[in-house]
């Protein structure tokens, strides 16, 4: 049985919704009632059936709508997709990874047929059936990274590894939480993380870089990150701040449930075989408060996390303005009873 893809929007009338099954599979990021940075990296291995980890590259009911939204972003701003000249080989690596993983996880929707370097890719949800020569850029309508990331949910950063550092040298970034590929392109790991508060003092980035530069082929890793977004808008980029920034002033006690969304990023890290680069997919999941609080444990825990969040973090995540309204709204759903350990709903 295949996925029923929703017809929905992430802008203007914001018709994005999660089905009840997708609410239950939402990757809720808090395993306890408080939150602080940690190097929360673990092996990216297949998880339980019915979770977002059922496949290493997750495709869900929002796939078609997200790809349409990406095409709109790119039409307005082509610099959301950039690849420095030395990164083409890594683009082919990524194309292979995403085609293989999507075909493996969702054979009813995707098929990859390989005959040496003659490849045929069938993407049924998007109505694509292309034959091309692997490694020959002239046989695809876009460069290899752009071609496959126009057909894959989530943002993708390809990090070149050299001089003991990682360099943001290619990427497709249209569903980002207020950062810009065009600004970060060519920067190294410490440069692009410079704005993050608190974590530098804890030495987190030094340790994280050491871990990431040692990621091995066939052994991907993952972590969750989170923030909040007003309205289910995928493209919360600095370039478009004038479109979404003012939304934060529109939260009222009446519309919290509909407007405020928890935004969770499933970040994974993979060594690419031909280029020796690292690809860093950042997959964004959105859930509105009304949907999230259908799981009482999540409602109680989110209340406690947001209430007790250090001010620096709340500020960095852009929550400051509507935090009191949100905490007040969530407090009515928190009877003070304990929450069970772990991420999942009860």
């Amino acid at each position, binding site marked *: 049985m295949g996925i029923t893809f929703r017809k929905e929007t992430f802008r203007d009338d914001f018709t994005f919704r999660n089905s009840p099954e997708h609410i239950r599979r939402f990757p809720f990021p808090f395993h306890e009632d408080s939150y602080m940075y940690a190097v929360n990296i673990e092996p990216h291995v297949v998880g339980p059936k019915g979770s977002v980890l059922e496949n290493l590259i997750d495709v869900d009911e929002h796939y078609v709508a997200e790809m349409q939204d990406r095409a709109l972003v790119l039409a307005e701003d082509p610099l959301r997709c950039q690849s420095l000249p030395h990164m083409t080989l890594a683009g082919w690596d990524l194309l292979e990874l995403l085609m293989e993983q999507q075909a493996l996880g969702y054979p009813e929707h995707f098929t990859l047929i390989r005959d040496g370097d003659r490849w045929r890719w069938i993407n049924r949800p998007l109505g694509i059936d292309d034959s091309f020569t692997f490694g020959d850029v002239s046989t695809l309508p876009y460069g290899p990274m752009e071609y496959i990331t126009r057909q894959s949910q989530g943002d993708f950063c390809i990090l*070149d*590894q*050299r001089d003991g550092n990682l360099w943001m040298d290619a990427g497709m970034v249209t569903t980002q939480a207020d950062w810009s590929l065009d600004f970060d392109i060519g920067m190294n790991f410490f440069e692009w993380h410079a704005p993050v508060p608190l974590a530098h003092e804890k030495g987190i980035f030094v340790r994280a870089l050491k871990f990431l530069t040692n990621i091995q*082929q066939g*052994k991907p890793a993952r972590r969750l990150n989170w923030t909040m977004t007003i309205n289910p808008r995928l493209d919360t980029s600095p370039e478009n701040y004038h479109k979404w920034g003012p939304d934060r002033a529109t939260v009222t006690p009446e519309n919290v449930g509909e407007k405020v969304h928890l935004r969770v990023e499933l970040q994974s890290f993979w060594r690419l075989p*031909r280029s020796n680069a690292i690809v860093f997919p950042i997959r964004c999941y959105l859930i509105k408060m009304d949907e999230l609080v259908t799981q009482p444990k999540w409602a109680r825990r989110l209340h406690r996390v947001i209430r007790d969040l250090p001010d620096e973090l709340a500020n960095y995540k852009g929550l400051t303005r509507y935090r009191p309204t949100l905490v007040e709204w969530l407090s009515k759903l928190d009877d003070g009873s304990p929450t069970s350990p772990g991420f999942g709903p009860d």
Partner: protein
Amino acid sequence: MSTGTTKLDVVVSDVVPVNELVTRFHFRRRDGQLLPTFSGGAHVVVEMRDGERTRLNPYSLMGSPLDTREYTISVRRDDAGRGGSLFMHRQVRPGTEMVVSYPVNLFSLDLRARKHLMLAGGIGITPFMAQTAQLAAQGGNFELHYTCRTASLGTYADLLRERYDRRVRLYHDDRDERVDLDRLLSSQPLGTHLYVCGPSGMIGWVRDRAAALGWPPETVHFEHFAAPQPGAPFDVTLALSGKTIRVDEQQSLLEAIEAAGVDPPYLCRGGVCGQCETNVISHDGKFIHNDHWLSEEDHRSGCKIMPCVSRFEGRSLVLER
């Protein structure tokens, strides 16, 4: 055994003597599937089960990264070594079943380079076999300068000349042919990256001259796998696991720790990747540091050791393992 990489079950599909010192080994997957793709400069760690003893030695993959039906490595016989190369030469036959690690690349090409200038010495030619194949397939610009003792010991020299013609220059020690290094390094176009693999002395010489001639350090790449050296046996206490072990003459400290059932992480087993770095709790004696990972300050401090290649002489050594 815990490791940094996934393992591959392989069978030796061919054993080919290349010259009086070097033999080439071909591996295929036992299940008949393709092997993982790799990049030029990558190595695998080969597990050698020799009776009671297990040795794990890294070898550069020297085949074309475009062909993953098989992996090939070349092993130079080291009669004074710890026996890994002798095991490969004497006991491994076509049909032998072995285990190798997934490929790991600690000597990667910098794909930004406008030109790749490669300097090889002796068996240090092997990573360049794969890198030149990778670059040639992409129309990359490279030039290889290869020094060997004699023509008959010039492993793959003829093959490289045949493949790449004038892009390969050969130098024979017995004919007193020497790379005119200063001239070579002074006459490269902007954007050239330099790669060197060979004996330690050669790597040091090339790095020193490159620095003296103003090459930025990030354009100079080198592969420095030190094979673990044999040495006098010594005893070690592993404080965390509460074990006392003996490191034999032909065994590395890391191998002895593993034989006791303790599994530190590792990748290169050659003193360069840093994975097996181990804290010293106390010692009474002298360290024999052979790694290229720890700083000189670390070496002097006596607080750290790389058990894959370094040894100890003295009364007592207690490690945080």
